[in-house]
């Protein structure tokens, strides 16, 4: 089914078109949710909520930009809204609280590098992780992140800097990347 047909079907509330759209984008979007969520169950709940919004707002999509980008933006916003409902999250994005947090040394057993990287991201404290996800992966600016998370732009920058240092440290320790002194990043597995 072409994207145009699928979209037209979704606008007309056609179940098979909706299922096709869900089947096409849900695996990647669940990956997005998983980076924000505490566990898989929470990620699935975020995905569910996100796709309900997508199907109810699909008529607002104007074919400006890629459909995946539009879907991804709704999913990310849904994840942030879910996280913001948790009071602990609001506390964690505050830099003064985040400094004292420690990395949970959970096992990263996957041999697939993408999964390894994602699992390493998930080892970060939730505040660091969210800012890093939004800035480095989703491409939001610090101003947008500040607006989205109700924090100062400077806080977002600081959070990101610390998150990156912490993540580098984890990735190096796990031999997923080489030390940052090298000029060019070379994935250890790719060598």
């Amino acid at each position: 089914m072409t994207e145009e047909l699928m979209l037209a079907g979704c606008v007309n509330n056609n179940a098979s078109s909706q299922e096709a759209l869900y089947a096409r984008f849900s695996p990647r979007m669940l990956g997005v949710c998983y980076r924000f969520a505490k566990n898989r169950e929470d990620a699935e709940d975020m995905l569910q909520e996100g796709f309900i919004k997508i199907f109810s707002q699909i008529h607002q999509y104007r074919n400006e930009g890629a459909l995946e980008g539009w879907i991804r933006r709704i999913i990310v916003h849904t994840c942030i809204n879910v996280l913001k409902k948790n009071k602990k999250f609001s506390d964690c994005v505050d830099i003064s609280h985040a400094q004292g947090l420690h990395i949970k040394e959970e096992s990263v057993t996957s041999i697939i590098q993408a999964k390894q990287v994602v699992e390493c991201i998930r080892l970060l404290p939730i505040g660091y992780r969210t800012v890093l996800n939004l800035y480095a992966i989703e491409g939001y600016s610090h101003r947008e992140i500040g607006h989205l998370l109700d924090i100062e732009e400077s806080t977002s920058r600081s959070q990101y800097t610390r998150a990156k240092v912490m993540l580098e440290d984890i990735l190096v320790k796990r031999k997923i990347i080489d030390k940052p002194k090298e000029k060019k990043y070379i994935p250890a597995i790719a060598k």
Partner: protein
Amino acid sequence: MERKLFSDNFERMLREKADEFKMYPSARVWHSIYNNIHPGRRWPSMTMSVVLVALLLLVGYTNTETTIAKKNTLIENNIAPAEKNAIPFIASAINESEKQIAFNSIDKKVEESANEKTALINSTNKNENFSLSSTELISTTPTDNKGFHSDKKSTDVILIAEKNEQLVDVIKVKGASQNQENKVSDNTVAPRKAPGKFGLQIYASPSMISPSFETNGITTLNDAGKSIGLEVGAAMQYALFKKIKVTTGLQLNYISYSTVGHQSTEPTTNTLIKQTQINPMENSGFTNTTGLSPVNFRSETYQVSLPVGVELKLLGKEELHWDIGATIQPTYVMGSNAYPSISSKLNSTSSALNNWNLNAGVETFITYKINGLTWQLGPQLRYQLMSTYGKNASFNENLANYGVKLGVSKALP
């Protein structure tokens, strides 16, 4: 600069790896999304529920035959291999001399056994067409791999005769050590009964209906008081623990009740419409507010439910006890004649009725077991948790049924 270069590469790597990462959601997620965006299309789950209940009933039914077959096989397997080859056939009426031989033979063998038990031939029927060609003792106790009986104390003694032509009667033989008669018919040994965990129940419950109305700022309908309901159903029971049973089944409900409306000369926002499954909107010419002469409206609904519940034994013994139970009943309204009030949100094609509903039931009952059947009798309350009418109607209506439930169940072995 080096750090910046690394930083850019690092972020690019993160983005690439994160984009490569995929996870496949469980089926539950899509079902939840589907049910949310298509609230009216829940037939797949309803169908699955019906299939599940039907399967459960089928399993319960077939379980009866399987159990008997299994027990017979078990008994057969407990017979030592040598004895199996003799094709056990139970001796019947024999003439006096043969009977005496049989007696002597049995007595002799039993006397030789350590248990010193006596076997008795109960039959007095004489039939010259038969002769006892051989007798032997067999055991129904488990044997080990070599065919030895593991426990001689529990050996049952039965008289075995090879079939000559026909067998007329049955010999009852005393259990050698347990003083229990093993009733034997033809070559089928009666299975020892074990209490089954499954039970099949049918029930019926006449009831009184009490509709409760809640309006959105509009004058309420009045309950005219004439109401009747009938509930019939079949359920499978499963004894989870000694005192707790879980139940599920299929239930049909008929509900009929009266409400008071008033004659009206012109349509108003409170005009009552006649709502049926076939005709979603038919102006009745009456209102639910004060008007001309009052008129009784009879509303009827036919529902099918899938009750899932639990029963708890509170007091009493096996034969007579007092129980309480509760059920939750997803319900589908199969047909109806109802009189919801028209509202501005209702158009000529939309239905004001909720096709799906949820009922909850609580009951308490006395259980009496007699002749293998378990009877139960007691009051029950069934309350409709969601309104009869949908968002388009001007008022909410929740029905409460008060009834007496009579049920009979049989334990499946």
